[in-house]
């Protein structure tokens, strides 16, 4: 019987020859990422009683959730982590000036096909875009990984998504994944691994693939992967010298479910409050006035997203009733966006540029919402209270829909240039 990507990669990481769904394995992850919660991880680590980290070079720590520190409490937390990093010789430490963890990991060569990556962040599924088995864990387990190098994992069953045809103009990978979440629901892939196939996926940029794997978390996925191809290999080789082995599924692998999506019939989608699976076509709710528009995050804050926004905004102004916030996903992205002139376009249009980081995406700082306000956002969660007041509403959509709405002052279908 053939094997899925998840089965093959986990078998390799557990040094075991043949595994099946449901097997409990001791897995040795190649990369173990934390962000600010490294503070909690190191606190737990110190209680275990081991003196040394299992392998400090597998550990990556990236500050992104509250950068620069927005409170004394956070500043103390940052300081404690910096001290731990110094004392333990952790080389892969990225302070407040690098970017969001899910963008920084690939940029610095930590996403290598065929490997296992764990992170103390639920959207760690993102790195499956590079053919990595990549999943979120809690801080306590991370402390155990730091100490022992391993953790227990159950081999998941898998879902296969197959796209047919190609996207219509104005429709993007964000619309595809929102549609899928609406169809499979928030728990449709709970405990499962998702694999993406189809001509449109092959044609897609790596950045767009990352949108699919990032948001797969919102249907519960344990991992979500795009099989690596020439594009993936070229990118990974451009950022790391470390060797890697590409793992793809066997052609006769067994899937729990196969879902086919006809892209020629897919229109722009929006996730309505207060659940990511409350998905509707944009046309159904067009006209709803908005107060804030957010372009950024680990979901849609990459160069291609900023390019879409800048092209729509060139020579135009954001609606007077709307605050628009732009957050590049990393300082590399920010730098490139400056060089290409996108940042000037945003400033001229009246947007506020926030330094790379999570910002208001998790309700920490830099653009929270008041009660009764409505925000359209390119991020990945719209739970009650996520971006500030529990009385605020968050709608999730593609960068194109977000920016078109910011110009119109209300939720609007993206313009399609002919």
């Amino acid at each position, binding site marked *: 019987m053939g094997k899925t990507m998840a089965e093959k990669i986990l078998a390799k990481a557990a040094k075991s020859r043949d595994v099946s769904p449901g097997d409990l394995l001791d897995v040795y992850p190649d990369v173990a990422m934390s962000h600010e919660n490294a503070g909690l991880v190191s606190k737990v680590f110190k209680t275990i009683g081991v003196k040394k980290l299992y392998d400090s070079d597998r550990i990556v720590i990236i500050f992104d959730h*509250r950068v620069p520190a927005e409170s004394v409490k956070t500043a103390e937390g940052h300081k404690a982590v910096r001290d731990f990093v110094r004392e333990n010789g952790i080389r892969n430490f990225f302070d407040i000036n690098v970017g969001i963890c899910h963008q920084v990991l690939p940029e610095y060569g930590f996403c290598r096909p065929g490997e296992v990556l764990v992170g103390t962040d639920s959207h760690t599924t993102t790195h499956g875009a590079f053919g990595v088995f990549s999943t979120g864990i809690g801080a306590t387990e991370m402390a155990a990984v730091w100490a022992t190098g391993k953790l227990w994992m159950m081999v998941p069953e898998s879902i296969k998504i197959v796209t047919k045809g190609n996207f219509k103009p104005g429709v993007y990978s964000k619309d595809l994944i929102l549609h899928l979440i609406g169809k499979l629901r928030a728990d449709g892939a709970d405990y499962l691994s998702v694999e993406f196939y189809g001509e449109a996926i092959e044609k897609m940029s790596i950045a767009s693939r990352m949108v699919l794997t990032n948001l797969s978390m919102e249907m519960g996925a344990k991992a979500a992967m795009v099989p690596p191809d020439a594009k993936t290999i070229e990118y990974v080789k451009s950022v790391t010298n470390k060797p890697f082995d590409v793992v793809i599924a066997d052609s006769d692998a067994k899937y729990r479910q196969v879902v086919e999506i006809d892209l020629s019939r897919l229109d722009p989608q929006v996730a309505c409050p207060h659940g990511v699976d409350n998905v509707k076509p944009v046309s159904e709710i067009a006209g709803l006035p908005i107060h804030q528009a957010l372009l950024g995050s680990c979901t849609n804050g990459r160069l291609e997203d900023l390019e879409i926004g800048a092209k729509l905004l060139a020579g135009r102004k954001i609606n007077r009733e709307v605050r628009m916030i732009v957050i590049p996903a990393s300082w590399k992205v920010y730098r490139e966006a400056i060089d290409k002139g996108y940042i000037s376009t945003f400033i001229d249009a009246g947007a506020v540029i926030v330094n790379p980081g999570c910002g208001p995406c998790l309700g920490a700082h830099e653009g929270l919402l008041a009660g009764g306000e409505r925000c359209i956002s390119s991020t990945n969660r719209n739970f009650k209270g996520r971006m500030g007041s529990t009385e605020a509403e968050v709608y999730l959509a593609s960068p194109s829909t977000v920016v078109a709405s910011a110009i119109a002052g209300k939720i609007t279908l993206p313009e399609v240039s002919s």
Partner: protein
Amino acid sequence: MSTFRGKTFVYGDDINTDVIFPGRYLNVFDPAEMAKHAMEDLDKDFVKNAAVGDIVVAGKYFGCGSSREQAATCLKAVGISVVIAKSFARIFYRNAINQGLAIMICPGIDEIVQMGDQLEVDPTSGVIKNLTRGGERTAKPLPPFIMGILNDGGLIPHLQKSMKSA
């Protein structure tokens, strides 16, 4: 683990980590402090009314959303003895076990429990009895390996124990 007895707090489906432990408190690491904010955006009276030993009962997909283990830690810090749900989100399931917070998967639980009922729960056999209005359901047993972690009080004590015996 011995039998749990306590009154219930009953909630619906898809209770996410943002309402169990809001993101604005994620820089809080002290369990006693975390306990003050448990369920804050879902049920403002929860912390006021919950007593040690009480039980949270929920629908499907409890704990969906972020990987923050504070969602499990804060419930344990409040004194919740066990969370019984129709199903759990993957990361919450792991976090609860690693924090030593007992959880039970019981698809029919909503049929026999209402807010405030007294339950008696045997985590080993999985039998859940409603002492207020009668009725009984049996939860799915947890794999022995996972019961082992819970019995040791969570992942860290479990690890320490195995390091001692190694």
